[in-house]
């Protein structure tokens, strides 16, 4: 029966090619616009650490002793002492301190001019905790952290640039005025967003596309980085002007982030207590004014920072409004098309076709339009994503159609066309055969 209906549908679509093209085009454009924005949304609002993110937490304490605003959120990052205290207590399953800075980088045996690159100074747990993949070598050890070892991990981009993509483990890199030994080269590691650097999203006015940049080019042990790039660390914010800008260890500023991994609910509760206890203790010592703490999961922290740029959300809404207009349009055209064939339908009904059969036949025709629209929509989505990749945004290089979104294109397209077809099909199935036969 389905094959017969399909045959009828193809005949019907061929009979009126202009109208068919109009309907297919309307669906294709609507689907193309929606799927392009949905793919970008999917890319930007996804989980950067699938399977692990539920165990990753972001502790916060309120280091600012001057603020009078209540209630308030603790500052996005910590001062040096809070960060180091919490990290060195080792109360979580894994913990990584991070500090960002820019550093001058040279390869001693390269003729390239020196580069200014982003450096992440962190502790050894960073790599296993965030499931970082390596092309060559590996991260450093906890002993390297302790010994302030002169070692570094570099990105594959930097490895390509300085060492032509060869295995550079064991080679030397000059960071500012210090030589460090390369122990690892990152693989194709591109979390979206670059979650561990996310902060200050609520002050970004919705312009958060910078959260989707690439990982830093140079990673060093925390204390190593602080020593070799001393004087080049910049605060997230300060409550008094620092006496020695760039040297923040004892400054009234926040600039250090701490990430912890807590594998069970009991450990989360324990860590929360520990954090509260620490804040209370610091308040008693007079270093903190408020003992507020937060322990958000990775996804809660991303959510709190509103990481998806407001422009992208706006584009998604716009695309769906557009799809709705295309839907109304298709309903109107299908209605016209089906009712135009009232005579034909009347004959079929008179010859014994049930209402259900007429309804099914009309839906098959609508579904066929959906499939054709889906193909067009898929092509337009590819075009749309190409346009996104041409945009000067940090996430541009990641905008590709994956298998799931490809399937969704067709599912959405057929769903939309069936939805558009349902009402006209219902109308068509209610055509009174006698009335139509009379006018033949």
């Amino acid at each position: 029966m389905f094959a017969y209906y399909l045959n009828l549908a193809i005949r019907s679509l061929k009979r009126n090619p202009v109208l068919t093209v109009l309907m297919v085009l309307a669906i294709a454009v609507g689907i193309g616009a929606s799927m392009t924005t949905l793919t970008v949304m999917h890319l930007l609002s996804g989980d950067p650490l699938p399977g692990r993110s539920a165990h990753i937490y972001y502790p916060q304490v309120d280091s600012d002793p001057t603020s009078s605003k209540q209630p308030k959120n603790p500052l996005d990052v910590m001062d040096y002492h809070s960060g180091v205290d919490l990290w060195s207590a080792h109360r979580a399953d894994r913990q990584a301190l991070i500090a960002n800075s820019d550093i001058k980088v040279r390869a001693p045996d390269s003729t390239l001019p020196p580069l200014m690159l982003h450096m992440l100074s962190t502790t050894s747990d960073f790599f296993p905790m965030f499931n970082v993949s390596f092309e060559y070598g590996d991260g450093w050890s906890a002993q390297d952290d302790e010994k302030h070892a002169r070692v570094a991990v570099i990105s594959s981009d930097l490895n390509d640039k300085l060492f032509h993509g060869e295995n550079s483990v064991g080679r030397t890199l000059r960071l500012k005025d210090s030589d460090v030994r390369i122990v690892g080269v990152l693989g194709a590691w591109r979390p979206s967003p670059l979650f561990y650097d996310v902060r200050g999203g609520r002050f970004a006015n919705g312009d958060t596309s910078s959260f989707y940049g690439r990982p830093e080019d140079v990673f060093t042990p925390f204390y190593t980085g602080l020593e070799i790039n001393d004087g080049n660390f910049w605060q997230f914010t300060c409550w008094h002007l620092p006496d020695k800008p760039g040297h923040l260890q004892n400054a009234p500023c926040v600039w250090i982030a701490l990430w912890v991994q807590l594998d069970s609910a009991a450990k989360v509760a324990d860590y929360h207590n520990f954090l509260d206890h620490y804040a209370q203790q610091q308040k008693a010592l007079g270093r903190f004014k408020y003992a507020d703490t937060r322990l958000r999961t990775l996804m809660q922290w991303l959510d709190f920072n509103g990481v998806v740029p407001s422009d992208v959300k706006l584009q998604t809404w716009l695309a769906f409004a557009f799809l709705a207009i295309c839907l109304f349009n298709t309903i109107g055209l299908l209605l016209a098309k089906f009712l135009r064939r009232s005579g034909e339908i009347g004959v079929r009904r008179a010859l014994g076709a049930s209402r259900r059969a007429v309804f099914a036949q009309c839906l098959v025709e609508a579904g066929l339009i959906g499939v054709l629209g889906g193909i067009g929509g898929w092509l337009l989505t590819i075009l749309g994503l190409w346009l996104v990749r041409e945009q000067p945004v940090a996430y541009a290089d990641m905008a590709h159609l994956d298998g799931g979104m490809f399937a969704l294109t067709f599912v959405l397209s057929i769903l939309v066309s069936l939805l558009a077809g349902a009402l006209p099909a219902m109308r068509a199935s209610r055509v009174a055969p006698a009335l139509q036969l009379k006018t033949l």
Partner: protein
Amino acid sequence: MQIQPILAALRKHRLATLLIALEIALACAVLCNACFMIASRLSMMHVDSGVDEGALATVQLTGYEPAKAADVDARAVAALRAVPGVQSVTLLNSIPFGMRRGTAGITTDAAGQHFGGVIEFYVGGAGSLRALGAQLIAGRAPQADDFHPFTGLLPGDAPIQITQALAEHLWPGANPLGKQIWLDKSHFRVVGVLKTLVRPDPPGWPTEQRAWAVFVPAQPGPFLTGSYLLRANPQDLPRVMRDALAAVTKAVPDVVIDREDSHTLIELRQKTFQNDRAMAGLLIGVIVALLGVTALGIVGLASFWVAQRRKQIGVRRALGATRGDILRYFQTENFLIVSFGIVLGMVLAYTINLLLMTHYELPRLPFFYLPIGALVLWGLGQLAVLGPALRAAAVPPVVATRTV
């Protein structure tokens, strides 16, 4: 033209009428809001910088110790001044549409109780305010003895020039000259008022805060170094910029030239707003596609109706209706449907605007967008229905006699 029979006919086609009206309503709502967003993006892109953008460029150096600042600056400035066509080379920490190095929250009292907002401190060496070309509307420009050395992020005490927008925010209605602002222990006294001076990063700020900036005179030092403002004739600027980068590379080979941020101000402005330009382009694309789809929907349905009513049209013609009567019938019908859609669309437009206002901090949709949206859709409807209506008008009266 009688409206009664048209309404009666539409009542027979309630579903189709409603569909077209809903399509028009949605189109109207999206159209009004999208136009409004385009307008606000465009107005942001045309923000008045208050400086002579066409004549300015910047060179940014990095990757050296603060202790070497004096030496690097001396060599770089000498090399830049030697580039033919350069009118002036001055030091300025932040650059309009470029580097941002002086963003901080201020208070209007020494105790730090009255928060004045987060503003941009343009800390500049001698001649930099003049080089910018910012227009002074009250008070005085910086004098030679206003420029002092400093060791922190900002000078601890300085006479400053403030923008009119910031002055009006801090001291509404009052004369800002002689007023003071504090940043922690640093203290600044207003001696001049600038017409306007844009922040380095205007897109990140609400409209009214985009010109919250002050100019602080200071002598170059560890925290005012490596950020040069070049002034040249606009037509020479591209060449001057090329030569300047080459000259600096030679003069200070051991530092890193930040090529990302070393550009003419025109280029920096382009870069600053490229996302907004892309978004405005996208919105225009959506509007065109939307109007196209809506028009096609109207054409499709009107054609269907014309075909369906051929006989009635023939009868009307046989009974004495002119071609014009038939034409006007379909035009009026379309006008009524579109009007119905527009009424719905205006309600929807404001609903969407309310949602946008709460989620995207967009201002309220100005009233005048609604009549414009209505006019566009009426026009579109009439244009779309013209073809089918002309076909209807061409139906000969003889059709009436054929099959009845």
